């Protein structure tokens, strides 16, 4: 723009803009609360707390076999019914949540730490480090996600820790890409140049100056990755390649429920509902977080 008039005024004689011209911000009058995200947060909160405290909750043992087989959900004992072996569905769902949440939170945390570290190093130093890290990321991305997991569980016997590890590997490229792009964008900013001029070492700049800015978009990504990992773990369990029985998992319950779909559809619907609500909640929270990040930084 070659606008003469619009040019920001640097004349000292010019008065600061008086009160009247200051932008009138309407305090969030029209921004309705995001009830979907709030409900999502509530659901995740309940699931996480239930998964942690499952041992102390008044629940029957998830692997305790009773003689009420495939009872549909109803009030009284066995709120969500029992499975074909007479095990309590609610209890299995809550203990199954341990697998899902361990994967979602543990796997995401692990891939976040590794991915962000790699991405920031690549984005800050560029050059050979960037090339090597990019190659590693591309290598991880060279496998279709589920095939990658299948190959991993084939090599490492499936148990909770190898699952978390495998799923964490799956999430690394996402975090690395976002962290790298954000680091590149911020590395040119004045506050980074200033820190460099003051003699700050790269480690200090990366952790003190850049990390905060990188974390903002990364956190909203983390919620989306959690949703993906819950689904990925579900897929493996559904295929019978997840945590080995009898440890309950939602995917395993769903696979078992499929066997008696026409007679006892609730065996499928209950775990399906847990999946739906959990993934939906993570997605809504992710949308909400992305909306907030979009407003606070223009990245």
């Amino acid at each position, binding site marked *: 723009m*070659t*606008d*003469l*008039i*619009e040019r920001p005024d640097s004349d000292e004689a010019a*008065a600061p803009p*008086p*009160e*009247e011209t200051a932008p009138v911000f*309407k305090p969030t009058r029209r921004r309705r609360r995001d009830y979907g995200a709030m409900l999502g947060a509530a659901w995740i909160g309940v699931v996480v707390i239930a998964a942690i405290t499952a041992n102390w909750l008044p629940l029957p043992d998830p692997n305790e076999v009773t003689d009420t087989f495939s009872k549909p959900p109803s009030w009284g004992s066995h709120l969500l019914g029992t499975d074909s072996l007479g095990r309590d569905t609610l209890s299995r769902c809550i203990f199954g949540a341990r697998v899902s949440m361990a994967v979602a939170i543990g796997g995401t945390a692990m891939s976040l730490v590794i991915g962000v570290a790699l991405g920031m190093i690549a984005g800050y130093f560029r050059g050979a480090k960037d090339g090597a890290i990019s190659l590693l990321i591309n290598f991880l991305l060279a496998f279709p996600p589920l095939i990658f997991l299948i190959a991993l569980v084939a090599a490492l016997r499936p148990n909770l820790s190898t699952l978390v590890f495998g799923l964490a590997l799956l999430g690394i490229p996402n975090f690395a890409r976002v962290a790298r792009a954000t680091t590149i964008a911020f590395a040119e900013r004045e506050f980074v140049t200033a820190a460099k001029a003051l003699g700050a070492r790269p480690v200090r700049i990366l952790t003190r100056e850049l990390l905060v800015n990188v974390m903002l978009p990364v956190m909203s990504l983390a919620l989306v990755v959690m949703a993906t990992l819950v689904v990925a773990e579900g897929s493996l369990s559904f295929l019978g390649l997840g945590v080995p029985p009898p440890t309950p998992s939602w995917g395993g319950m769903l696979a078992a429920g499929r066997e008696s779909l026409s007679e006892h559809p609730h065996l499928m619907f209950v775990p399906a509902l847990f999946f739906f609500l959990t993934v939906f909640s993570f997605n809504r929270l992710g949308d909400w977080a992305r909306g907030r990040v979009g407003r606070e930084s223009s990245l």
Partner: protein
Amino acid sequence: MSVGMRVDRVNGMAESSPPATLLEVRELKVWFDTSRGMVRAVDGVDLSLRPGETLGVVGESGSGKSVLSRAIMKILAPSARVLRGSEIRLNGIDLSTVSPKQNKHLWGVDLAMVFQDPMTSLTPVVTIGKQLTETLRFHLGLDREQAKAEAIRLLTLVGIPEPAKRFHQYPHNLSGGMRQRVTIALAISCSPKLLIADEPTTALDVTVQHQILNLLQELQAKSGMGMILITHDLGVVAGRTDSIAVMYAGRVVERAPTRRLFSHMRHPYTRALIDAIPRLTDPSHTRLASIPGRPAVIVDPPPGCSFAPRCPSAQERCLHETPALQITADAPDHTAACFFPIGTPAGDAARRSNAEAGVTAAGTRVAQEVS
């Protein structure tokens, strides 16, 4: 033809014969529904344009001039609300009553528009020839051969060398100036009655700006279409328009025939705009004149004149009352919205007293005036 119209108007028959005014805008209000509140982009604009006439609309970025042009074209963004009571008439037809289907035959044929940035106003993935011929074939019902011949004629008309070669090229193969010529060819392809040019030269090099403006003027003279030339630069419209409307914060603050506006401007804002034009006679390294403060924010504006906070003439009254557009004492076709117009005793007194006090009623500091 236009002479006859003017006779009509002089005879007082303008009301009964609609073609006397090509475009009539009354009380146009376009507000935007944003998260920060209602932005009053256009807040009560009246305009009229006779066939063959050129109107310059001048204002800073954000003064609502682009929204005005888009409202006339009916291509406002979905978040825009045209308020009730707004009226836009083209040849006497209220555009709000035109159905979307009829709109298709209004656009291009009656109304056309040249956009600001030729880099973005041509579809990048469609050849220039195809963009021209699809318009011609749709509106004029030409067949493939005729459309191609006409397209090449248009490209020649707007001064594009090697039109037959350009016909098969994509927009990115052309320079900015050439692209703007193509958009002009597109706009005039169906001989519109009104052409709106929204900052047609802002995105171009200075040397190309003149060529494009001259081309527009030339085409207008040949076809006799009405034209609205929108710009932030008074210099652009100075020699090329019949009259000028100055916009500020969504309103027209002054409207006058071009010559008159430059010689007898009434509104302090117009004066500030004119002062901001750099002159060849200025000694080099003269600090460019600028208007203090920022353009008014038009979200739920407070009462009072929106220019008052930046106005060297502002008085107590300007902070509480909104001035309406009024005919100035000396000419019926010169209107201004100011309580203390420049060149009147009241206005001069207001300016002088502010200059002496060193501060206006709005609290803006003013320097001692040289002139």
